[in-house]
């Protein structure tokens, strides 16, 4: 994205109101189960006080513009939910890593990997 230095002063990448951009995209997709689960995990862990919507946004914004352009919306959300839960001490990086390995070993598709 091209910005004049003056225009960018004091603004971060996500503060995009007023920037030039192309046509508004018209594609729409149905949310898949895994995306709805990410949303539910965010709502539940924030309603129980493990982090706030500001914590969610902080990590999303710190992930930067490249993540915005290359990852889907709920991919960015689960990355942020994870960072916040790690910071809250809910589980350790080692616990997460071990569990992710177990999940991957169960099968090659989302459905197979969910059957623990």
């Amino acid at each position, binding site marked *: 994205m091209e910005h004049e230095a003056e225009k960018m002063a004091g603004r971060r990448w996500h*503060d995009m109101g007023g920037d030039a*951009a192309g*046509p508004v995209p018209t594609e729409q997709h149905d949310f898949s189960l895994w995306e709805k689960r990410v949303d539910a*995990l965010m709502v539940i862990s924030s309603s129980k006080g493990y982090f706030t919507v500001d914590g969610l946004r902080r990590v999303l914004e710190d992930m930067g513009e490249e993540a915005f352009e290359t*990852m889907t*919306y709920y991919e960015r959300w689960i990355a942020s*939910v994870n960072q916040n839960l790690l910071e809250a001490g809910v589980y350790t990086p080692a*616990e997460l890593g071990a569990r992710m390995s177990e999940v991957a070993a169960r099968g090659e598709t*989302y459905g*197979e990997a969910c059957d623990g």
Partner: protein
Amino acid sequence: MPHDHHDHLSPSGHPYRADDDHPLTYWQQMEIAIRELLIEKNIATAAEIAAQIDAMDARSPANGAAVVARAWTDPAFRNDLLADAGAASAAMGYDIGPMKLIAVENTPEVHNMIVCTLCSCYPRNLLGLPPDWYKSRAYRSRAVKEPRKVLSEFGVTLPDATTVRVHDSTADMRYIVIPARPAGTDGLTADALAALVTRDSMIGTGLPKTVQDS
């Protein structure tokens, strides 16, 4: 190709998302792992997660349409809605929680539209999850700079004399547009009126259906 997925549309007419039938992705793997850890650590139950998804699926623009139709037919409710949209919509069973909700009313002089330039904040209690375009760079960037051009991409052309007012949402403060009641709808019931209220008319990127359209 052995499968041509382009032939297959979901019940709502959209293509199925590719990642539903692709190999497990890294981020899906992470979601499963986090969900299982939260359940094992007694932070959430599987039933709770399923119930949250059901609650989310139950929220749709029909909620907002019921609120708008009531505002069109019940002047006291309209005043309550404009004074405190969070309380008025909660009284109809659509609780927004701790966030502030502001209803902005379209008139012959003023057309309102909503955006979240910083992220994707949206009145989920009344409209469900935001459409993909609402979260796009193009809409977030341009809605505040050239709203009439954006509106024209949605097929909405307003008279030059109409003031266009764009409201930028935040995580704590959401907006809902109360579209203007279409002409020729005198005597319609609130239910019949609600059927005219589209999602986009409550975002401000559309207008309600007319009696002839419906």
